């Protein structure tokens, strides 16, 4: 953590960490506005902004019409005129209408005006499955955006990272997509340092040291990968677990340092395998460290189907599990 101005901490879950961080951002800078669907009177569908409208007023906590393209587009215009908007897309599955405003506009404002205008904008959205969200409340969208220069993308797994990375995203002078895995919202609790601090975007975190295999993941699956790796430790297998935290930029140095030590790489993510984040990591490691590898790189990812189904067997068939992850780790170590 870059700046820690406090010694004490508070236990909270991920949704509380988002809420507390947004609250402090609203308190400390009146250029900060929140806009999105049902963020006002309802206080967001996960109650992240509950009561914000009473404290900060409807001018700063804006219930928008159901119009995702303009939620982002209006925030782009606000950012260009000196405000620090935080736009919310209620579920990542609803982000597609705003694709042009994110990819065609926000990501290119600085570049196309040669720095005359900038777009300091945060786009928050809950993503991910395992919550019986069916086709339109479960998707992962990171691969649709990580191809785009001009964007930064963050996907924290722990409450302390939520706070530090969200603060960094809000401070950032460029557009940042802040992806919150909704199954971790209330499932994952942890110590969160009090006071203001930031965690640099683009810095991964080695959660568990190991010598025989590197596992790289992010979001919900970080927790399951860690659970599997800790269990394998009792059987004498030594697995290193790296939490990416940031998807763009991505921490090449930490990944390579780990892989060059363990000589084996397993990438685990919930999003589809084809063209996913794991493909880019695999290519990078193959380019940079192929001759240091003792096994083929392996990816354990979501299947190439349009979405996970609503029926429990269809959701379970899409999602991985700590047991499946442990099997893959065991096979890789034994290779």
């Amino acid at each position, binding site marked *: 953590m870059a700046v820690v101005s406090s010694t004490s901490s508070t236990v909270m879950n991920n949704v509380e960490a988002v809420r507390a961080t947004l609250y402090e951002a609203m308190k400390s800078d009146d250029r900060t506005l929140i806009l999105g669907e049902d963020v006002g009177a309802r206080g967001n569908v996960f109650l992240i902004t509950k009561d914000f409208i009473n404290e900060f007023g409807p001018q700063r906590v804006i219930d928008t019409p159901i119009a995702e393209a303009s939620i982002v587009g*209006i925030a782009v215009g606000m950012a260009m005129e000196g405000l620090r908007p935080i736009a919310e897309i209620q579920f990542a599955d609803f982000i597609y209408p705003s694709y042009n405003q994110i990819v065609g506009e926000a990501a290119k404002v600085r570049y196309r005006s040669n720095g005359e205008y900038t777009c300091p904008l945060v786009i928050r959205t809950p993503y991910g499955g395992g919550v019986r969200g069916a086709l339109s409340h479960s998707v992962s969208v990171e691969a649709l955006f990580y191809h785009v220069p001009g964007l930064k993308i963050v996907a924290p797994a722990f409450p302390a990272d939520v706070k530090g990375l969200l603060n960094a995203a809000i401070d950032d002078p460029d557009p940042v997509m802040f992806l919150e895995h909704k199954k971790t919202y209330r499932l994952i609790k942890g110590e969160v340092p009090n006071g203001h601090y930031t965690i640099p975007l683009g810095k991964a975190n080695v959660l568990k040291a190991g010598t025989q295999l590197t596992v790289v993941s992010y979001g919900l699956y970080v927790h399951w990968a860690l659970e599997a790796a800790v269990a394998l430790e009792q059987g004498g297998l030594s697995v290193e677990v790296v939490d990416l935290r940031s998807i763009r930029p991505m921490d090449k140095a930490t990944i390579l340092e780990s892989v060059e030590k363990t000589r084996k790489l397993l990438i685990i993510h919930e999003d589809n395998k084809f063209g996913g984040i794991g493909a880019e990591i695999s290519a990078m490691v193959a380019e940079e460290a192929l001759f240091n590898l003792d096994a083929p790189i392996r990816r354990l990812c979501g299947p190439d189907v349009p979405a996970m189904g609503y029926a429990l067997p269809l959701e379970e068939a899409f999602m991985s599990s700590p047991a499946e992850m442990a099997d893959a780790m065991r096979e890789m170590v034994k290779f």
Partner: protein
Amino acid sequence: MALERTESKARAAFERHGLSDEQLVAMLRTMLMQRTLENRGFQLNRQGKIPFASASEGHEAVQAGAATAFERGKDILVPYYRDLGLELGIGLEPYEVLLSLFARAADHSAGRQFPHHYASRELGLHTISSVIAAQLPHAVGAAYALQYRGERGRAVLTTFGDGATSEGEWHESVNFAAVHRLPIVFLCENNEWAISTPLALQMGQPDVYKRATGYGIPGIVVNGMDPIACYAAVREALERARSGGGPTLVEAKCYRFLSHTTDDDDRTYRSRAEVAERRKDDPVPGFERLLIERAVLSEQDAEALKRSVLEEVNDATDRAEAMAYPASTTLYERVYAESWQPWRE
């Protein structure tokens, strides 16, 4: 609530809406400059000196009028790509236009953008892409910022063609502005053509301003070939916005005389007879005649004005052409505030 206006007939009445002779001549000069610069763009393209040019011929009156109503230093302009006269009218220099055409390093976008995609905080001129209607939410966000900070007396003017009114972002933007009574003017330059698609294939009835009723805001229609009428309409709308009266949708009926761009050929989709008929309303010679008839300037003055415009364009052409292209290394600059690669090394 839509306020229907009869098209004003400047020649009959010469209602000048408080515009001084000086202002009227400045408007004519902007219109002449716009046309001369755009002709220069097409010439340079045909000479093989630049890869692309576009024109707004037929839009001069609405743009000169709107620019005169715009208050530089206070208002914000969020234009579209066919707005050269508006940009010149609020202070863009012909030399900057030529830098854009030649894609030189000193261009506003440092040679990255197509011609006529400017960006200047000093002029209050927003950066845009070429994507239709994508700038409208930005204009609304800027207007929200003005209202949020309590900056009374300032407003946003945003412009678009008839084609843009089909986009979802157009609806979303007008609707949000109406909900929050934002200080913004939506100015539609209706030239009847979305590249090759005529108005009849774009909308079920030909009047954009009538949609204002559905949003609960005033809608005004004006003869887009009459610069004074356009000035009056946009001024009224901007004054309403600046004084807290909320948004207005203004529709200026004009016409696109030329092809969409140098890469288009309008002979493939519209008749020469139609274009020739509409040419009779050409606002540039029309406004010049009006000002001479009303003794705002003499024929000699008008000739001198045209000569000075041409000389300025010639000079700007030579100066801009002599400037350097951007260095290839600038491809990697201004992606982020920091010089960053996707990988953190």
